[in-house]
């Protein structure tokens, strides 16, 4: 672990075995087989093969990075070679015994994917060869100059992404350019090999030249006058806003639906971001407010027998939010004196109590018990019912923009600073004259309000709600997405939702492994990148305070 320690052959072997074990685990859990049908490049490569080779490639790269310069290539190759050993053991075991009666996912199909369709013996040899090759390639990549390495990595990443999402892309391209053009690029849900090569080379080249020219470009921006810069920022914002408004037209029905789901999680994420990210109160019962918002909306607007008022969406919306805020204060009050992990467990308890109560016969006459509330109308806008996802998108967008606006204004306000002070140290914050009771309650209340808004939109989007859709997993989901994006960072919430909610919806095979991935992501993020993918400026500065290589950004001039 310590940096002075020499990286020996044994470490390279260990890395390889770890990589092999990771790949075996991914295979045994069933992910490889699931993705073996999703082709990346037509007739050449499936997504499953990417999963098989990912761990060996990454760990070989690590080996090459850690070892001395002159034997980096060798240790990469060694790691790659030994990565194949556990996989071969798995293959041989599976072909000798019927493992399937114990491990449901070790199927003949998986074994044939792992051995590239050849028998166990030939397949094993191929595995060894390919893994060693990948290890070697990863090591070579590491040895390359940064100016060349980074563009190649960018090119690889984008080509893989395009390949993975080729099904969606195909549909979109057809909508815009017609079938004949699309077939040139993507046929039967897979990228054509020539196109893949063109993409790889093209993106690498662009990234390379961008890397060369980028420095002068940012210099030019820095030299602009203040008015020019401001104009440019305004132009950027307007362009971005227009893009947001035009989104449903570009995306089509299916993708709009995905974006709506992402938006609902962004809303919840923005709320939890206030509670966890700003105020540092780990709330695991956050789904409770989502449920309250949804149920209030459902009962107020439902046309079924449980509906009490049949009001319109727009009347019910503020009521849901206010109820959620009240619930936030109500549930927040008793836990004001708790901190850290006890708070997490208590809020988890609250969330579960509310879910079980909603599910029970006790409240059945009011909220329908396990049968839920049905016949909730979709929102309507001046007489037109917003049935299409592309129409509903604007409701979600409005909610997100509102929450975003409130969050940005709050984050730099007096209250936001108080939250952050409280997050860092409650006792010191109190000594500085911060009223902990009010500050905490406001965090709970505003967070709950966003969640309630999200729940209300969710209820009218789905038109029926059931208690089992408000379980702990939603809280975990939201927590994961703000951690992945970066705690306390608003763009991080969007990035996190796109990765954790958007990706699994696009790659439907993921559905089963969503929580598996979340769990792994939570661990990996905490170990490797606790600040998240898009950390807020403050967090970044704090975490790299002693890191000289990253210049501390000058705070924007206050005006």
């Amino acid at each position: 672990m310590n940096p002075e320690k020499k990286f020996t052959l044994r470490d390279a072997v260990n890395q390889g075995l770890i990589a092999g074990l990771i790949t075996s685990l991914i295979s045994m859990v069933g992910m490889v087989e699931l993705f073996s049908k999703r082709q990346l490049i037509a007739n050449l490569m499936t997504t499953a093969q990417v999963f098989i080779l990912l761990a060996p490639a990454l760990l070989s790269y690590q080996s090459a990075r850690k070892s001395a310069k002159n034997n980096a290539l060798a240790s990469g190759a060694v790691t790659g070679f030994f990565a194949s050993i556990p996989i071969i053991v798995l293959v041989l075991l599976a072909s000798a015994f019927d493992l399937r009666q114990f491990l449901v996912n070790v199927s003949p199909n998986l074994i044939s994917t792992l051995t590239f369709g050849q028998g166990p013996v030939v397949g094993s040899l191929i595995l060894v060869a390919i893994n060693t090759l990948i290890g070697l390639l990863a090591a070579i990549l590491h040895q390359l100059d940064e100016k060349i390495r980074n563009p190649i990595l960018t090119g690889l990443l984008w080509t893989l992404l395009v390949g993975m999402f080729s099904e969606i892309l195909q549909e979109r391209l057809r909508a815009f350019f017609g079938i004949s053009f699309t077939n040139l690029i993507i046929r039967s849900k897979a990228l054509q090999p020539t196109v893949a090569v063109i993409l790889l080379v093209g993106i690498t080249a662009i990234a390379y030249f961008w890397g060369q020219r980028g420095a002068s470009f940012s210099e030019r921006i820095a030299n602009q006058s203040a008015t020019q810069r401001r104009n440019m920022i305004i132009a950027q914002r307007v362009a971005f806003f227009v893009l947001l408004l035009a989104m449903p037209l570009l995306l089509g029905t299916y993708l709009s639906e995905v974006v709506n789901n992402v938006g609902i999680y962004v809303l919840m994420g923005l709320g939890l971001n206030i509670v966890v990210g700003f105020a540092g109160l780990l709330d695991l019962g956050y789904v409770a407010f989502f449920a309250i918002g949804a149920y209030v909306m459902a009962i107020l607007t439902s046309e079924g027998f449980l509906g009490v008022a049949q009001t319109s969406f727009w009347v019910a919306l503020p009521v849901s939010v206010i109820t959620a805020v009240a619930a936030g204060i109500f549930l927040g009050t008793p836990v004001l004196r708790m901190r850290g992990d006890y708070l997490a467990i208590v809020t988890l308890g609250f969330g579960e109590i509310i879910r079980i109560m909603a599910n029970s016969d006790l409240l059945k006459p009011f909220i329908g018990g396990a049968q839920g509330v049905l016949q909730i109308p979709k929102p309507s806008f001046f007489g037109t019912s917003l049935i299409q996802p592309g129409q509903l998108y604007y409701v979600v967008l409005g909610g997100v923009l509102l929450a975003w606006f409130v969050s940005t204004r709050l984050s730099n306000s007096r209250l936001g600073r108080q939250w952050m002070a409280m997050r860092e140290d409650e006792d010191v914050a109190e000594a500085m004259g911060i009223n902990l009771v009010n500050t905490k309650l406001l965090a709970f209340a505003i967070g709950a309000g966003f969640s309630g808004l999200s729940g209300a939109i969710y209820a009218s989007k789905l038109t029926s709600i059931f208690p089992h859709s408000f379980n702990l997993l939603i809280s975990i989901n939201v927590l994961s997405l703000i951690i992945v994006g970066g705690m306390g960072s608003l763009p991080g919430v969007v990035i996190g939702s796109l990765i954790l909610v958007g990706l699994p919806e696009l790659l439907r095979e993921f559905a089963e492994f969503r929580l598996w991935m979340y769990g792994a992501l939570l661990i990996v993020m905490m170990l490797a990148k606790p600040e998240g993918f898009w950390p807020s400026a403050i967090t970044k500065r704090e975490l790299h305070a002693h890191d000289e290589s990253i210049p501390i950004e000058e705070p924007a001039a206050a005006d």
Partner: protein
Amino acid sequence: MQRRLQNINYLDLVLWLIRVSIIVIVVWGSIATLSDNPYSGRNWIDFIVFGIAQGSMYALIAIGYTLVYGVLFMINFAHGEFFMSGVMTATVFVAGPLSASGYLDRQPVISLLLILAVSMLTSVGVAVLTERIAYRPLRKAPRLVPLITAIGASFFLQYTFRGLYGSEVKPFPQVEALSGKIPFLGTELLESQLVVIIATVIMLVGLYLFVMRTKTGKAIRAVAEDKDVAALMGIDVDRTISITFALGAAMAGAAGVLYALVFRQVHFFMGFLPGLKAFTAAVLGGIGSIPGAAIGGLFLGIFESVGPPLFLDGLNVPAYHQLKDVIAFTMLVLILIFRPQGIIGERLAEKKA
């Protein structure tokens, strides 16, 4: 100053209101039930015995929370998954084949010991690996960080085992030798429940002696007291923490087998609720204390089993058994809010906060 005082008073008022209303509900419900008297004495004994059996399992799982909290001041959220992983593996790889070959009924004692051993070893393996990979690198991180990894580890393990063994509920074979009943105080005890209670007592006493009498136990207690000083005294802190995790997981693995004996089914999600309740039990008894975990477990088990018919039936709650978990969770919330140091524990929560 004036305002702050007012705020605190308001907060205390709210907390008192909650206390009083809970007491009123409990007392009112109990009186209503008892005056109605829909249950015979036999019923109550059944409830209590079931509660004790259930509580024994909670106690065994709670040991893991208590030990780990004792040394690391961290809630090991993934502990319920250690419980699940052991018994799932033992069911799939040992109990299933043994039962299919008929060996389970011919040699029940050997079979059960084998199942127990596999379950405990798997749990220990999973726990030690989890500690090594997910917790150890984060020992110096802020307190929220290990909790988040623990949540991550919990879901990762759940869905790993779901991927490995499938998502359906798996039957745990019925052991013929334990399916009988024993007459007791005018009612009948299920043999499996008796086995659970006896096994728990043996394991708890063994664990207590291990922690109190052996050198390793002493090392664990030293690390719990102060890691730095323990390291100066020549104790390998990392190894001791691993052993602590292993001990807790071994208890959880055993509890898993006992759970399977009583409920006769296992599935990948089975660790969540017992884990949470065992945590409640650990806090109830005072987290960090081994006897506390035992007492907390028993108390919670009995409360959960007697509570719904006692308080809720009298209040005319329809289908009150659905609210069994609500009682456990309410208890969790109330204990954490009003008495985080537990029934007999010292106040540890603030010590390293």
